[in-house]
């Protein structure tokens, strides 16, 4: 029986690789939220339009992309900065929230409010009253305290903009698609921290580097694994074990290592923060598994088997 590599170094490397990716992913998510927070929930590529709500909602080209519609109700309240909101996909975007959750449907009269906004208490909870209508408060805007969103009120499901002429702003993650759909371009007069910190330059650099590092590290792990098991592969092949069975054995051993790494990381993260979003980790685990198996199979396993055949 061959001595297997049992020091757990491969598992450790896998854990560090996943933690590295998760940290960068979380950093980019938080940075995106900070950019939204510094620019009143707009991406900076929003387009002001003189079309009314009905015209915008009837645009087929616009409906094909995930967009958000904002209108500021200026001078309605001396204290609150009231914005009306609509999106055609509530699952695709999330504002920075310190508490609560985002809207779930365009038909519900709901509100997200800043920390300084005065609310009314009703039997069924806190509400924000605007234009004689009560909006259920579902969350508190702003990641930080104090926040630039402290006086903001974001209202969902309002008909106010159908009855009044308001300046509308359409925003989307893909500014080029949005400009094509609306037939006009964005004129950015406000700046978020992304502009002053040149995130358009740094963020893609960070993403590219992290991808390259992850891929290379996977290659190294596959190589290390191959160094550990190639003698075993050779001997098992020579004593007549079927190539596919051998491959299955090696695959299971790899799967066990990835599973161990994932379980350790899941438990560790859960112990550190029970509210942590583990779906990213799960997704990453599958991706890692696929890439690791692919690199091991294509680069190393076949080579070991071929060498064994020659010998």
């Amino acid at each position: 029986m061959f001595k297997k590599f049992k020091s757990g170094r491969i598992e450790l490397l896998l854990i560090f690789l996943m933690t590295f990716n998760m940290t960068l992913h979380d950093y980019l998510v938080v940075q995106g939220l900070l950019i939204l927070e510094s620019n009143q929930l707009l991406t900076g590529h929003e387009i002001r339009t003189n079309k009314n709500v009905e015209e915008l909602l009837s645009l087929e080209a616009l409906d094909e992309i995930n967009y958000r519609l904002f209108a500021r109700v200026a001078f309605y309240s001396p204290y609150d900065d009231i914005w009306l909101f609509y999106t055609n996909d509530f699952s695709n975007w999330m504002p920075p929230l310190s508490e609560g959750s985002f809207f779930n449907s365009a038909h519900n009269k709901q509100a997200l409010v800043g920390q300084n906004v005065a609310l009314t208490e009703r039997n069924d909870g806190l509400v924000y009253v605007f234009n004689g209508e009560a909006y259920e408060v579902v969350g508190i805007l702003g990641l930080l305290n104090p926040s630039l969103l402290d006086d903001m009120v974001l209202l969902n499901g309002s008909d106010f903009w159908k009855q009044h002429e308001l300046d509308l702003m359409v925003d989307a993650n893909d500014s080029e698609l949005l400009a094509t759909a609306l037939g006009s371009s964005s004129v950015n007069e406000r700046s978020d921290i992304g502009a002053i910190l040149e995130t358009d330059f740094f963020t893609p650099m960070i993403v590219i580097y992290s991808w390259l590092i992850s891929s290379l590290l996977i290659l190294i792990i596959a190589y290390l694994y191959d160094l550990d098991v190639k003698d075993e592969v050779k001997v098992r092949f020579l004593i007549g074990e079927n190539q596919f069975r051998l491959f299955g054995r090696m695959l299971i051993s790899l799967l066990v290592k990835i599973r161990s790494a994932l379980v350790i990381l899941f438990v560790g993260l859960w112990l550190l923060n029970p509210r942590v979003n583990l779906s990213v980790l799960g997704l990453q685990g599958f991706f890692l598994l696929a890439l690791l198996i692919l690199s091991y199979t294509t680069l190393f396993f076949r080579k070991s088997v071929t060498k064994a055949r020659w010998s």
Partner: protein
Amino acid sequence: MKGEIKHYLKKYWFFIFLQALLITLLLGLITVFVQFTTLTSGQLHHFEDSFHGKTMFTVGVDVLAETNTTLYIDEENRIHWDETVDHSISLFYDLLNQRSDIHFLSMNSQSTSIRDFHGGDLFDAFYGTELMGEYELNDNTYLRVKAIQMNQQAFEFFDLELANGVMFSWEEIDYNERTIPILLGDAYQDIYEIGDVLISGAPFENFELEVYGFLPPNTSIFYFYEPNYVLDRYMVMPYPYSLQAYVPIDHQLKVFLSLAMISGDIVVADDEGALAFVLNVLSIVGELSGFEDYLLWDVNLFATHFTRMVAILNYNVQLLQAVLVFCMAILFFISTQVSKHLFKRRKKHYQLFHTLGFSQKFMCKLILREIRCMFIMVSIFLLVVMYLVLIGLYPHDIFDPAHLFIFPLFLVLEMNRELLVAAGIQCGLAILTYLCLKSELKKILN
């Protein structure tokens, strides 16, 4: 020893190559984070230096004041006044502007019509509204483009600087000559050139606006409750240095300019007596000039926006530093673990050396040489990356890729900080890897 190193390189060249590439990439990522953190910290300090401990009050003309008897509005909503008012308002501005105990930031975002404008709709001050588009006047086509007028104090308070061009002299700005030097936002770079002259329509009727320079991209100021009002598509027009020196040839333009120029923001130290201090300054200036129909209001949003913006920048810096430390830890861990793994595979070699009577010092030297081989490779990769970055960053007339001998010079001049960071981390990494392997060696030999 040479033979052993050769054997090591021959057997594990692919692994060493991968490890060196990985370290290079991680060093690259760390350099990006260091640059990003430096930039963010710089912006944070800039914000703090410019706005910390300051508060803002806005002063304007009370055109509807009951005491205002010499200022009247006609049926076409035009404001008129007599010479006495003209003199007192001009003196009010000049006295306020000359005071050294306050910052008087006079700014007004008044669109300016430009004849035969080359820039297109995106520079239209009314873009996205029903008023957008060109208009015809006396067989000429005009577009109302975005413009911001400001005085020297505002320009200097927001640290505005030129990306290229020549800064004009504020003292020499003379509206009587109907020529104003202007600076254009970054979006104008491919549209106009330095020295181009634009002819303006209302409200600066038939003025020649000469382009003196361009602002850097993303230049922003605190204006009209916006903490980052971007000037990329704006033309910056300087106000006359002295309002008294501007002799009114065009009465309406003088009225417009006077009202705009004395409507500005007064920035003072943020303490309990700030309001009383500003009221006292205005009272003195009003008494000396004879103009007292002004309004004053407190822009507490200035301090609030500043605090909130700083909180965001601060949070971002902390986040960046945390990620940077984490990346460094990962770099060190991965590098040492991978080296350790390779070392364990070679432990039989070292045991054999020990049996053959080689000293521990000899084996440490061998380890050092192995580490050195990898870091030489990392350095070569890094130099290649930096060379490619320089090719990408600079046009060929500045950095010609064919002239390799100027590469070290550029490297030292332009990337000295990156070079230092990379060298420092490499040294740290090499030492740590050596210490790790040395302890492994001790374990094997014992």
